[in-house]
């Protein structure tokens, strides 16, 4: 297998040891690691041009503003947005979704409306809509997930009847399913719905093209894209953003303020109240440069190879059950081991230096649908190598030896 191991040297943390064992980091769906250019960008910003953006007329502020806006253009190019104006910097995917709920949903949804989600969603694409629904009284409907971890699209048109907004995840954070977004968006648009895509699990793994996906909003997190924490993105169609009310009020998002009335700045500034995460936005730009330097097509190709390898190796361990078997899948593998609770499994793997997640993965409805309330999850990134999958599998065999059979 041709891998991308040459890039491992750019990630200092991959040299770390855990319990005196080399770190095998397989929790990339929770957060990705950060390459040197990202760390250096943060450091350089604070050392040499830390200043607030969009207001100072001095040299540092101009430099910070230029870098911040350059990062916005990099994000736009990364997701093939038609113009940078539609790129709003937020804290993370969760905040991006809340922004749509509060700034679009609160204005345009009424009591008789329907919001369509799926059983596959992360809690962050369920709870904001439930909160809003409690206030407005619209109905929330869910597309069913089938046993294999794919969405049941057989009655999509009927499910879309009366739907004003559809929210769905690009890639499942549990079973790794890559949803057929363009097809679903087409159907949703025919039904007159606006579509929001949760891209949290996509941007590290596959090329994202919001024009090809034809969605209306796309949300993702910097920290899951090799960037820092505290920076996220909401991309939105500019005409929708213009029609929306502001999200938070404060500085930066205004055009003019009198004691009686405020007029708002055009997007994206309208949605970026207060001093933004400047260093983090610029460093997200560096992360995007880094990823595009490798090439997202190349990353996606390797992701697919490593996923097949991981599926095959995990499947070879007796008692291991990998959840979901979507034909189009990314590299998040939730699995269970017969007789061993996921929390015990995760703690035991940790003693071998292997970092995986255990629990409900913030997707409890999906766990219930699949009949598995808790599971372990290994999730890879392009800098993972087949030997690390082997290490996971070896550790699983060891764990089973220690544990023997335990009443489930």
């Amino acid at each position: 297998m041709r891998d991308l191991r040459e890039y491992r040297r750019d990630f200092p943390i991959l040299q770390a040891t855990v319990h005196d064992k080399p770190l095998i980091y397989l929790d990339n769906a929770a957060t990705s690691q950060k390459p040197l250019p990202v760390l250096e960008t943060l450091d350089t910003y604070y050392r040499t041009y830390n200043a607030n953006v969009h207001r100072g007329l001095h040299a540092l502020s101009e430099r910070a503003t230029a870098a911040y806006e350059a990062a916005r253009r990099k994000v736009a190019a990364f997701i093939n947005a038609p113009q940078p104006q539609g790129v709003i910097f937020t804290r993370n995917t969760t905040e991006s979704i809340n922004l749509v709920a509060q700034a679009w949903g609160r204005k345009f949804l009424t009591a008789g409306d329907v919001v369509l989600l799926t059983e596959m969603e992360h809690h962050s694409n369920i709870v904001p809509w439930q909160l809003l629904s409690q206030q407005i009284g619209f109905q929330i409907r869910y597309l069913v997930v089938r046993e294999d971890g794919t969405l049941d699209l057989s009655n999509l048109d009927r499910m879309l009847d009366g739907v004003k907004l559809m929210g769905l995840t690009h890639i499942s954070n549990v079973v790794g399913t890559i949803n057929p977004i363009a097809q679903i968006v087409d159907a949703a648009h025919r039904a007159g719905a606006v579509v929001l895509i949760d891209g949290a699990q996509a941007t590290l793994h596959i090329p994202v093209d919001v024009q090809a996906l034809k969605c209306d909003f796309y949300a993702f997190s910097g920290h899951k894209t090799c960037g820092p924490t505290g920076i996220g993105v909401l991309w939105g169609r500019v005409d929708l953003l213009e029609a929306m009310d502001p999200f938070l009020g404060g500085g930066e998002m205004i055009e003019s303020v009198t004691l009686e009335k405020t007029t708002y700045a055009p997007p994206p500034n309208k949605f970026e109240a207060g001093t933004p995460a400047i260093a983090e936005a610029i460093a997200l730009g560096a992360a995007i440069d880094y990823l595009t330097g490798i090439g997202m097509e190349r990353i996606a190709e390797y992701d697919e190879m490593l996923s097949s390898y991981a599926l095959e190796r995990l499947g070879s361990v007796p008692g291991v059950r990998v959840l979901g078997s979507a034909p189009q899948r990314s590299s998040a593998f939730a699995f269970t081991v017969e007789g061993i609770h996921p929390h015990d499994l995760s703690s035991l793997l940790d003693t071998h230096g292997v970092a995986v997640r255990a629990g409900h993965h913030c997707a409890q409805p999906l766990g219930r649908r699949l009949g598995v309330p808790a599971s372990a999850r290994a999730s890879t990134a392009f800098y993972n190598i087949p030997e690390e999958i082997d290490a996971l599998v070896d550790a699983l065999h060891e764990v089973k030896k220690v544990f023997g059979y335990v009443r489930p």
Partner: protein
Amino acid sequence: MSARDLYQELILDHARSPQNFGALEQATAHSHRENISCGDTIDLYLLVEHDRIVDVRFEGQGCALSTASASMMTEAIKGKSLSEVQQLTDHFRTYISGEADTLDEALEDFEAFQGVRQLPARVKCVTLPWVTLADLLTQKPD
């Protein structure tokens, strides 16, 4: 830390064949708890007569640590008076939180959880049965 430090044989024994497992029909008190981080559940049943725990049972779905902890706890409190059990609960709390390093004889099995004390995320698993017990100690048995 090795796997054996964390999962000592005593813990695995209790997890494999928990003591006092199952429902208790004649229970005078019952409490249900869930660990929100993993969805684990526990149901604890007490039969209290004259302020003494005559019988105790538990059931539910849990990891090895919470199952072993529940099993050991039921052994430790069976036959004890409510005030003794209250003392054991306090004693357990000081040990698992690291405030105290030694254990009284009644709780000596819990020494097996020494390694877990360094893993705050897992301390919750060991604590779950005890928190469930505390619910019952603060309420008057019906």
